[in-house]
C-alpha cells in the first residue's frame, strides 16, 4: 500500500491537536497515515448539525431527524448550541434583521466547520430575493460548502447534501484543494441578475394579453355570498346599520367599509364591544397616493390613508363589523388600546409598515422592522426592492 505523507502545513488539511502531536512524536510519524484515515472516518461520520432553522425548511430538517429518514444513523446529531456543532444547516429565509445573529452564531462554532445552505431561500432568497427585508442568499456573508436546492428540499435531499459534505470533508483531509469561499465566477453563472418578475416594465403586449385573459377568465359581476364579510353584506345587515347610524354613519358604500369620523371612532368601538363584538379581528391601514381612490383611478383624490377596523361577535352566527377612518397625511388617530387590548400590536404593526401614527398608544415602537429602520415599506410609493444595507 502506497503511503502518502501528509503534512499539517497544508492549509486545507485538518489540524487536529492530537494529529499534530502524533506527527511530531519521533518514530511515530510512520503510523500516522492509517491513523489519519481513522480520524477522517470518525470525522466524516460524526458531523453534528447546528440547525439554523428559521422557516419551512426547518420543518423538513426536523422530519429528516425524525424516524423515517433518521439522520442519526449517519452520525449526524442535531445540537442546540453552536459550540458543539460541526455543520451549520441554514434552513429557511434569512432576513436583514436576522442575518447579524446568524453570523454571530457561525462565529461561535469551533473550527473546523462547514455550512449547508438548505432550500432556495438560503441559497438565493427565492422570490423574496428582491424584497427590502430579505438577504439574497446566505453566501453573501457565510462560506457555504453545500447547496441543497428545493422549496423545501425533501429530507432525502438533505441527506444527499450531507453525504456530499462527507465526501468534501474527505477530500479536504486528503489535502485536495476544495473551494470553500463563494467563487465569483460560479456566482456569475448560477445567480444571473434576471429582470425582476414583480417589477417588470409594462409593455403594450403585456397589457393586451392581460385584457384578453381577463375577458376569458371566470370573472363576473361582483355579488356577495352570504358568509363573506363584504361591505355589501354589512350594508344589508339591519343590526349593524342601526349601530352605525347611532354614531352618525348613514352612508354604506359598496366599495369599502363605512367611513366614520375620526372623532367618533373610539365611541363606536366601545358601543360595538358592548353590543357583543368582543373580539378584535384586525386593523388594516392602507396608503392611497394622489389620484387613487376606492373605486380605482380617481384624479380628484388627494393622497390619504385609510385605517379599517374589524371586530367580531362571538359564537353562533358570528359576524364581522368593519368601519374605516380616513386620514390626511400627518394626521393621527386615537388608539384603540383602551377598548381592545389586542390593538397594541396591531397598531404597532400598521405604524411600522404603513406609517400611520396612533395617538395615546402606550408603546408605539416598530414591530416588524428593526427599531433603527427608516421608511414605511407598505406605502405605495416605497419601492419593494429598496436596498437593505449592507446585504446588497
Amino acid at each position, binding site marked *: 500500500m502506497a503511503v502518502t505523507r501528509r503534512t499539517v502545513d497544508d492549509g486545507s488539511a485538518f489540524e487536529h491537536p492530537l494529529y499534530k502531536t502524533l506527527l511530531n512524536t519521533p518514530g511515530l510519524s510512520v503510523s500516522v497515515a492509517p491513523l489519519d484515515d481513522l480520524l477522517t472516518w470518525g470525522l466524516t461520520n460524526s458531523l453534528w448539525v447546528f440547525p439554523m432553522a428559521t*422557516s419551512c425548511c426547518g420543518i423538513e430538517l426536523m422530519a429528516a431527524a425524525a424516524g423515517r429518514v433518521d439522520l442519526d444513523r449517519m452520525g449526524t446529531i442535531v445540537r442546540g448550541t453552536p459550540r458543539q456543532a460541526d455543520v451549520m444547516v441554514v434552513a429557511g429565509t434569512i432576513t436583514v434583521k436576522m442575518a447579524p445573529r446568524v453570523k454571530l452564531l457561525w462565529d461561535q462554532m469551533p473550527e473546523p466547520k462547514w455550512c449547508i445552505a438548505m432550500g432556495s431561500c438560503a441559497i438565493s432568497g427565492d422570490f*423574496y430575493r428582491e424584497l427590502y427585508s430579505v438577504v439574497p442568499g446566505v453566501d453573501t456573508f457565510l462560506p457555504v460548502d453545500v447547496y441543497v436546492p428545493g422549496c423545501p428540499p425533501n429530507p432525502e435531499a438533505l441527506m444527499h447534501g450531507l453525504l456530499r459534505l462527507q465526501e468534501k470533508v474527505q477530500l479536504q483531509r486528503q489535502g485536495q484543494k476544495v473551494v470553500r469561499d463563494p467563487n465569483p465566477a460560479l456566482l456569475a453563472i448560477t445567480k444571473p441578475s434576471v429582470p425582476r418578475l414583480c417589477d417588470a416594465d409594462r409593455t403594450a403586449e403585456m397589457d393586451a394579453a392581460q385584457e384578453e385573459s381577463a375577458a376569458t377568465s371566470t370573472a*363576473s359581476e361582483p355579488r356577495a355570498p352570504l358568509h363573506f364579510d363584504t361591505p355589501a353584506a354589512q350594508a344589508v345587515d339591519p343590526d349593524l346599520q342601526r349601530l352605525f347610524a347611532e354614531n352618525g354613519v348613514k352612508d354604506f358604500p359598496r366599495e369599502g367599509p363605512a367611513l366614520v369620523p375620526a372623532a367618533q371612532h373610539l365611541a363606536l368601538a366601545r358601543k360595538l364591544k358592548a353590543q357583543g363584538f368582543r373580539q378584535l379581528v384586525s386593523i388594516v391601514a392602507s396608503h392611497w397616493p394622489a389620484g387613487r381612490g376606492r373605486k380605482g383611478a380617481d384624479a380628484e383624490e388627494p393622497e390619504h390613508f385609510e385605517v379599517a377596523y*374589524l371586530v367580531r361577535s362571538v359564537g353562533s352566527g358570528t359576524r364581522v363589523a368593519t368601519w374605516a377612518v380616513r386620514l390626511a397625511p400627518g394626521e393621527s388617530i386615537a388608539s384603540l388600546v383602551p377598548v*381592545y*387590548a389586542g390593538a397594541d400590536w396591531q397598531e404597532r404593526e400598521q405604524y411600522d409598515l404603513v406609517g400611520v401614527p396612533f395617538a395615546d398608544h402606550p408603546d408605539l415602537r416598530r414591530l416588524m422592522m428593526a427599531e433603527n429602520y427608516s421608511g414605511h415599506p407598505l406605502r*405605495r410609493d416605497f419601492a*419593494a426592492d429598496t436596498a437593505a444595507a449592507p446585504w446588497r
Partner: protein
Amino acid sequence: MQVQTITRRVDPHLAIDLYDPEAELLLLHFGPQHPSTHGVFRMDLYLDGEIVVKVVPYVGYLHRAVEKLCEKLTYAQITPVVDKNDYVAPMTNEQAINMAFEALLGIEVPRRARWIRTIFAEMQRIASHLLWLGTFALDMGGALGGGSTVFLHCFRERELILDLFEDVTGARFHYNTHTVGGNRHDIPAGWSAKVKAALDVIASRLPEYASMTLENRIFIERTRGVGILDGELALELGVTGPILRASGVDHDLRRDAPFHAYDEVKVNVVTRSAGDCLARAQVRLGEIEESIRLVRAMIDGIPEGIINAGRPIKQPAQFKIPAGQVYVGIETPRGELGTYVIADGTANAHRLKIRPPSLHALSALPHILPGATVSDAVVILGSLDPIMGEADR
C-alpha cells in the same frame, strides 16, 4: 410576586423602574435562535430570582415582506407565496387567500371542490396538531423521557398525512393546489382507501399519545395551572383557535360561520374552561380525534362533478378583480386566518393584509407570562403554537 390569578390583569407595559427597587433583577435574552422558540422569536425576560416579572417580546425576525410582494404579483401568482406563511398548515393558507378572491369575484366553488377542500383542511389540522404535540413534548425536555419519544411518534404519524398529500399534489408541503374557483388537482383513484387506512393507524395510536402526555403525571404537573389566559382577555387580544377554546369560549368558525362544506357536516367543537397549557393540549388532542371523525364521515361521500368553476381546469396567468374590499376569515389549526383584500380594478391588489392567528397568540405573552418561572416560560410559549412565518410574514 404572587402567581397571577385568572381575574387579575397584568400591565404589559409595566415600567420596570417601578418594580420593587430592592429586587435584583436579571435581564435574560431568550431567542431569536433557540430550539424552544419555534422559529425565530425573541423575548427579553426580566427575572426576579426565577420568577418572570416582565416580558418584552420582539417579532419580525422572519419578516419576509409577503404583503408587499402580494401587491406586486398578480392574483394568480399569490397562492404559492402564501403557502410559505404558515408552513405547518400550507393547505389552509391557500384556501384563505383564494376564498377572498372568490368572494370579490362572486365565484361559486363547485360542491366537489368544497368537499375536497374540507377534507384537506381537516387532514392538515391533524398533521399540524401532531407536529405541535411533538415539538411541545420536546420543549418539556427530559421530563418526558428525553422528550424526543413523543416527537418521534408524532412525526411518524405526520408522515402518513404528508404522503397522502403528496399523492394528490406531488409535494410534501407547499402544495399550490388551490386556485380561484376550485382546486387544481383532483383526488386520484384509490386515494380514499389510503386515507382511511392512514386514519385507522393514527386513530389507533391516539390512546398512546394520551398515555404519554395527558395521562402522564409529569406532563400534567408541568402544564396544569400554567399560563392561564382569561377568555375575555383572549377575545380582546384577538386570540383564536384552540387557545381561545381552551379558555372557555365556544367559538369555532367551522361551525359558527361555515365555509367550504362545513354547512353540510356537523362539527363538534372541543372546549375546555381552565385556560391553562393542559387545557390547550386537551383541546388540540380532542381536535385530532374530531378531525379524524370528520374525514371518515366525508371521505366516502365526496360528490361527483367538476373541481373548478373554470372549465377546463385552467387558471389565467392574470385576471382583474373589480374595485372592492373584502375580509374572509377561516378556521385553521392555529385559529382565524383572515385575508383583507383591497382591490382597485387591476390585476394586482392595492393592499392585501393577512391576519395571522400566531401573531395574536404571541401578543398574549406579556399578559400571561409574568408570575411564571423561567422553565414555565418555555412551556407557555410552546402551548401557544406560534409559527413565525405566519406571525412575521
